């Protein structure tokens, strides 16, 4: 692996991690926290809920 390849793969990994985290915060955190609350894991539900952004706004409009 040369230096160009190392940098390129590093960028890809960073982008991948960021997109997984964003997808989780945007779409999974809210339903997951509700589910955890139903199961009785209140602390975990609060922790996950903190990761939830404000109600999502559509990307093409305001």
């Amino acid at each position, binding site marked *: 692996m040369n230096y160009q390849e190392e940098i*390129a793969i590093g960028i890809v990994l960073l982008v991948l991690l960021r997109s997984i985290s964003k997808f989780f915060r945007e779409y999974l955190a809210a339903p997951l926290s509700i589910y955890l609350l139903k199961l009785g894991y209140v602390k975990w539900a609060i922790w996950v809920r903190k990761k939830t952004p404000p109600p*999502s706004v559509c990307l093409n409009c305001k």
Partner: protein
Amino acid sequence: MSKLEPNILRVALVGNPNCGKTALFNALTGGRAKVGNYPGVTVERKEGSLVTLSGLKISILDLPGTYSLDVKTPDELITRDIVLGNQIDEKIPDILLAVVDATHLERSLGLVFELLTLGRPVLLVLNMMDLAKKNGLDLNFSILAHELGISVVPTVATRKEGMAELILKIENLSLQKNVSLPFSTSWKKPGLDEIRKRFSDVDRLLDLSTRHLTYSVAWTDRIDQVVLHPFWGTFLLLVVLVFIFQSIFTWAQIPMDLIKSGIIFFSNVVAIFIGEGPLKSLIVDGVIAGVGSVVIFLPQILLLFLFLLILEDSGYMSRAAFLMDRLMGKVGLNGRAVIPLLSSFACAVPGVMATRTIENRRDRFTTILIAPLMTCSARLPVYSLLIAAFIPNKVVFGPLRLQGLVMFSLYLAGIVSALCVAIILKSTILKGKKPILLMELPSYKWPSLRNICIGLIEKSQLFLKRAGTVILTVSVLLWFLASYPKAPAHSTVPPISYSYAGQIGKIIEPWIRPIGFNWKIGVALIPGFAAREVMIGSLATVYAVEDREHGVAELLGSKLAKDWSTATALSLLVWYVLACQCFSTLAVTRRETHSFRWPAFMLLYMTGLAYMGSYLTYHLSVKMGLG
């Protein structure tokens, strides 16, 4: 912020739809909330804040419009719950600003009387005073204030007139009354006698306080004689739509060419500074090819929004809804569904949210389910790319060209398919009576240059933000999938076939081959679920990685024209008319229907429809010699 802070004065804007609450909200807070000259623009609470010269912190709440607290629709329920202090996590407003359209006091004062029965501090804001004066109305503010027992402030929110007086009156009211005590207030549904009495009170007050200095047929009525005419009105609507799509193609060409040249120049510069290797390939074939191929369409997107904003701001949008009521009636819906459907031309997400103005649950769900079939702005880059690559730009008749007509017919296909689906839904799972349409038509206004500029700036920011986030991310990830693992030395097969993208594509291909798609389209369709236009970025990346020699110098359209048949392009166009390629729409449908069942149904029926449509289109096109 102010939900929890006790020292902030909470002021709520309450009034009929389209009386200028959001314009007042923007004038008070310096906000940029969307303003439109049609009822139902605001379907959610919005919050902004200001600090007065005396240091008083005020939180302003903009609420959806309502004619009464006896609510019928989900958006009106938000208003009632907040006004009465029944909303969880939301303190009751300390002061209610009863915003009324000064030109339509007879419709607005009923709600003011109802608000007064709550025993909360109320201020009357007479908005649109400039139009009232122009219409020859002379309002006696002191009589109004005396009879209602509250302060009255005349304003023109769009020009920020009367704001200083309004803020002063709010401050005075906050000092006069102990406005922060009760946590909720009681309200009971008024009986018939109470409603009759309220109407007679409104009539009496109008007799006392209002004088018509001049009587003339308003120019709004004169224009409506043509615009709302069953034949001429519909003809005009069609002419407006054809003009829009024709202009999108013609007027955007020069800025698009400039952006194209900029992208090619930029990729050449990058190529000079970074030597041959994977990093250069990532930046040129992945990022620049992927993001650049979508950014090119910014001028067309802006033109589309320019026309939509002019139609909204002028008051024509409501007329279009009125004209469509008869057609909507035939499919079992009413004109109220038209505004959400027209909003979906910009994006299905606000369209789905705008269905909150629909009273009947079954009508609301039907409208939600068909809203994604209306052609949103994210489809525009896909349509433009394929039309420019496969449809000759020949003159059909006069100024009409084939490319513009094809674009118009794709929009029309979206509308027709939505209506057909509505017929099926309304006669099966969502059967119900057709309600009567009662709709307030706003006065015509010259579109506000400020509103249009703000709207266009916001759309550009959002479009570029999406290009810089979602499309950039997908381009980088897809570059990796299309580049690794590398092909063995001396391989005779194209290297991309060995890659992960190639392998995934080959798995998908048997399912999409019957509709004329190759594996590269299949690979691009998957990230296209994040947002429709991402498909273009993905295709650009896959084709750029495959053909590294030309990179972005040879534009995507020319590459597609070489690789695909016209039948494949037409099939993909039909797929994009009908398929639900949008995760945000599914998420907002889940939120609005409070169920996973409806978004799942939406995804299934639209994918099935798209597959059938593409299959028929592809095979018919092949039979016609376009294969």
